[in-house]
């Protein structure tokens, strides 16, 4: 497939998903009503729904999707494996544990619920704490294999911690439900606070990532060969782990655990447009954003109580399998 058509096509797809996210939902609104609402007119309810509910939610969804898509590309280049995903180094597990700890221990410590910024903050702190050890290893030049194994061990440990907290709150079933909802990911009740919390840092990290594309090409074909060709491999690995952590941590902090996006989107786009990271990075950001919005739309339009993380897997999985089955 020609890559010249890629950016316009992906932008069009994203625009479509964005508009659909504004136009469709629980409340039936006509396009005219949506447009009027965006401009500040129309009836009160429509305006509130479009501007204060759907718009921030769509913006958050785009940021999260872009972050996960980009992070997936980084992990796949870093580990030289097209099956790598953002959570490999324990970032999302750490983020999960941070948030679940606040949800679980909050009631025990006296406050029934967390202020809006506490949960994302705790999640981000957890994510960085988890990757802290890995970052140090990456700087000291630990081999990729050792990093991978550290990630595996860390994921197991953090998962155990999260399960532990789940069981200790089993008696308080409302807290338990909140934790489960968070663990399954979702964009409910996302407001403008979440947009400002997640949007600018994710955008900044994405922009910082873009110039690293060429170097990532070289890294993805071997660390030693990359180094001999002039890439500062140690610094690059550190930058990649840092930026990927920021992206994954923020995405998890703002939307809970949403899987599959970081694995499927870059992989699919690579099959379609080739492995050049200078193109794959921006494509995956756009594609990830569009994909996430589409999945969120599904959760809102089909009132079956499907969680976002479930939809990304239900859509991403079979599509991915179909793509793999096509003859080369």
């Amino acid at each position, binding site marked *: 497939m020609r890559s010249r058509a890629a950016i316009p096509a992906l932008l069009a797809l994203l625009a479509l998903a964005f508009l659909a996210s504004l136009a469709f939902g629980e409340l039936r609104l006509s396009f005219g009503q949506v447009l009027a609402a965006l401009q500040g007119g129309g009836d009160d309810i429509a305006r509130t729904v479009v501007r204060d509910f759907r718009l921030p939610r769509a913006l958050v969804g785009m940021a999260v999707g872009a972050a996960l898509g980009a992070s997936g590309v980084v992990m796949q280049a870093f580990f030289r494996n097209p099956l790598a995903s953002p959570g490999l180094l324990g970032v999302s597990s750490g983020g999960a544990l941070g948030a679940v700890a606040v949800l679980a221990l909050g009631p025990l410590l006296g406050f029934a619920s967390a202020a809006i910024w506490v949960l994302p903050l705790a999640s981000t702190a957890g994510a960085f704490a988890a990757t802290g050890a890995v970052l140090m290893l990456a700087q000291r030049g630990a081999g990729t294999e050792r990093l991978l194994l550290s990630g595996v061990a860390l994921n197991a440990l953090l998962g155990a911690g999260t399960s532990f907290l789940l069981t200790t709150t089993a008696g308080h079933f409302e807290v338990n439900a909140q934790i489960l909802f968070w663990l399954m990911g979702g964009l409910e009740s996302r407001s403008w606070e979440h947009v400002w919390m997640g949007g600018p840092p994710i955008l900044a990290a994405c922009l910082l990532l873009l110039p690293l594309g060429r170097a990532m090409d070289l890294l993805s*074909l071997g660390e*030693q060969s990359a180094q*001999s*060709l002039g890439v500062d491999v140690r610094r690059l690995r550190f930058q990649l782990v840092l930026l990927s952590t920021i992206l994954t941590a923020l995405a998890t902090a703002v939307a809970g655990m949403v899987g599959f996006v970081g694995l499927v989107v870059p992989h699919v786009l690579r099959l379609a447009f080739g*492995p050049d990271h200078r193109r794959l990075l921006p494509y995956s950001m756009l594609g990830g954003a569009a994909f996430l919005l589409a999945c969120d739309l599904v959760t809102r339009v089909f009132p079956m109580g499907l969680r976002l993380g479930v939809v990304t897997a239900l859509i991403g999985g079979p599509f991915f399998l179909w793509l793999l089955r096509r003859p080369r």
Partner: protein
Amino acid sequence: MTAPALQTTSLAVLGRLEPVSLELGPGELVALVGPNGAGKSTLIQALAGLLPAQGTIQWNGQSLSRILMPDRGRRLAWVGQEALFEFAFPVREVVAQGRYAWGDDLSGVAEALAELDLTHLADRPATRLSGGERHRVGLARALATLAPIQLWDEPVAQLDVRHALEVMRLARRLADAGGTVLVSLHDLRAAYRFDRVLVLDRGRLVGNGRPHDVLTAPLIREVFRVEATFVESLVPELPPG
């Protein structure tokens, strides 16, 4: 008196390479030989700055630690033993990666492809090549860097006779043009055609000089544990032209 292209003083890698001191000048075609596990790859990687090592290394009289990363990409090219490509970059793209340190300047890529007989494979994904073809891609990439110092680790091990000879001729031409080319190989007969031979045995440098002086029967017996009989040249030649 120009500085040597590569110079080391007591270069050592813990457990793998005893202190080695050597000097390679411009215009030299050097062979690195030794039994399996002697440390050939280790020495080459250390010279290329790819392994942490003790001792000093200097490229063109400048200490390696003072040479910035991108500059290293312009001054020395390394080709490893393994040639694995995880992602399906077209061959042309892989070779073009040799130009990384030169920024956007893609000159030399087409020539490099031609030198290694890869022009007809230029658009093939690198993941769909045979072992020998992949090795040639690695060499083409190194060539594209236009680096005056070339370190090739067993570049002909998987190549057929014709391509192996072509690579040797390429190395010769690079040296004749003023470059320093170090090639590790197993074929002692081919090593005779080099300007200099380095012999490694169990991590120690036991030979450093002209082939006839270094590759003597006693040394070969000692290091390689084979009996060598010297016969007049039976090395196959490429037809001229």
